[in-house]
């Protein structure tokens, strides 16, 4: 690698990288004291079903969720959203007027992904309500196996209404570029995640380096789903950290 910049920020995905549902992957010890202060560490997540407060014991300002991005968007546009998000994520939208909705926000909300609720959302979108996707992940790793993410349901509403969703989470470039502190260049940041397209591809499109980990939703061959491929593929998050400590400090 020529022209390599110093590493100043590490962006880390949560679900599937740091933990799977409530089980932590072997991780936290990887942040041995000496390394961490040299980098800004930021957690970036499309985990839409838990609100910020439930995420780790990390200062809020170090966590960037697509839920907060969605909230910002509907607030800027003065919209009253129909919220298809998990109950535990509603807290992130506290205070917003949701009566007589004129926008539809779709996150990961299996309990809402049924015929009746999707019909309600569809009718709103067909009448002109903007469709906001917290993210468009195809599926995620659940305790009992892979399960459908919000992406397929957003796609269904897009097809039915003939309109495109505004996607606010990963892999949107704007989502990644908001994360590093001002003055930092994308080339000075690396993103670590288990989703080839949304974590690694998205970060690389934003000018960062992307490290794919073979945990969580990772499946053999995922490396080839993006072009250019990942900067690096590692077995786990600790391996990725080892690499950063050895080669990018």
């Amino acid at each position, binding site marked *: 690698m020529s022209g390599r910049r110093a590493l100043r920020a590490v962006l880390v995905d949560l679900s599937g990288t740091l933990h799977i549902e409530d089980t932590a992957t072997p991780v936290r010890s990887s942040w041995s004291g000496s390394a961490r202060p040299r980098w800004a560490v930021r957690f970036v997540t499309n985990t839409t079903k838990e609100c910020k407060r439930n995420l780790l014991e990390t200062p809020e300002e170090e966590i960037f969720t697509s839920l907060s991005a969605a909230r910002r968007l509907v607030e800027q546009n003065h919209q009253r959203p129909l919220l298809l998000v998990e109950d535990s994520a509603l807290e992130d939208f506290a205070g917003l007027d949701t009566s007589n909705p004129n926008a539809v926000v779709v996150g990961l909300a299996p309990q809402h992904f*049924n*015929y009746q609720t*999707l*019909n309600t959302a569809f009718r709103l979108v067909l009448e002109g309500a903007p469709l906001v996707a917290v993210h468009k992940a195809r599926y995620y790793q659940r305790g009992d196996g*892979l*399960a*459908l993410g919000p992406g*397929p*349901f957003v796609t269904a*509403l897009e097809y039915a209404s003939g309109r495109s969703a505004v996607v606010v989470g990963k892999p949107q470039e704007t989502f990644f570029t908001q994360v590093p502190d001002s003055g930092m260049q994308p080339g000075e940041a690396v993103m670590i995640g288990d989703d080839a397209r949304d974590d690694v591809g998205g970060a690389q499109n934003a000018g960062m380096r992307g490290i794919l980990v073979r945990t969580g939703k990772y499946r053999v061959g995922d490396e080839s789903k993006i072009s250019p491929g990942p900067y690096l593929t590692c077995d786990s998050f600790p391996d990725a950290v080892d690499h950063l400590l050895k080669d990018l400090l």
Partner: protein
Amino acid sequence: MADSSWTSSAESLKGVILDLCGVLYDSGEDGGTPIPGSVEAVKRLKASDLKLRFCTNETQASRDKFVAKLQKMGFDISVCEVFSPAPAAVAVLKDRGMRPHLLVYDGLLSEFESVDQTNPNCVVVGDAAGNFTYENLNDAFRVLIGLEKPVLFALGKGRYYKEADGLSLDVGPYMKALEYACDVEAEVIGKPSSVFFHSVLSDMGLQPHQVMMVGDDLVNDVGGAQLCGMTGLQVRTGKYRPSDQQHRSVKADGTVDDLAQAVDLLLGARAGPL
């Protein structure tokens, strides 16, 4: 109001294919109600020298059941005149030796009784309506993602249809959801698939240019028929929306108020200049 230039080819027509829902009847709580004038219009077509078939993407009930429903409404119609996706799908599955995981309406299951469904190696999705729960969609997704080469069949790909209480999502959006989740492209069985229309034409023993399709769905009825070389006529009943007139890719050969007017103009033009 009706542009009747499409009737100029009426004399050379030898057959007519009618869509059912939105052309013959409107669906609703108690099975639906006939659209005014349509019972009589079907009778007049049958009495003419035109061959008549019915072509529907109805997948909420078996053919026997919904044909019986139409007969009860007063329509002169029999099972052998009706083409619907489920029997066509059964033929395809048997032909290719495929064992489906079914995500369809309960009322349709009987159509698939003769097909081996153990250890599935494909998914068939129809308009499952209330059966489109997250867990049911997830089950179908897991079958697909677990296959080395996922195969998805969709019984039609309509976007939505009209029910008494408003518009409802049809099978198309759910097909798209599974396509997106698994990176596959579904094989559509039913309108607007050419294979489906050609099976109707071959049963009629007619060439596409000899046949006119009448439907309320611009893309699936009119556009599908036109791609096969048929004339496509749209009625302003059922799911018709005024914006259909400005559609970016499909333009109907003609638009009429309803089936009764279509039959009036068609039979009138054929009788006219003798």
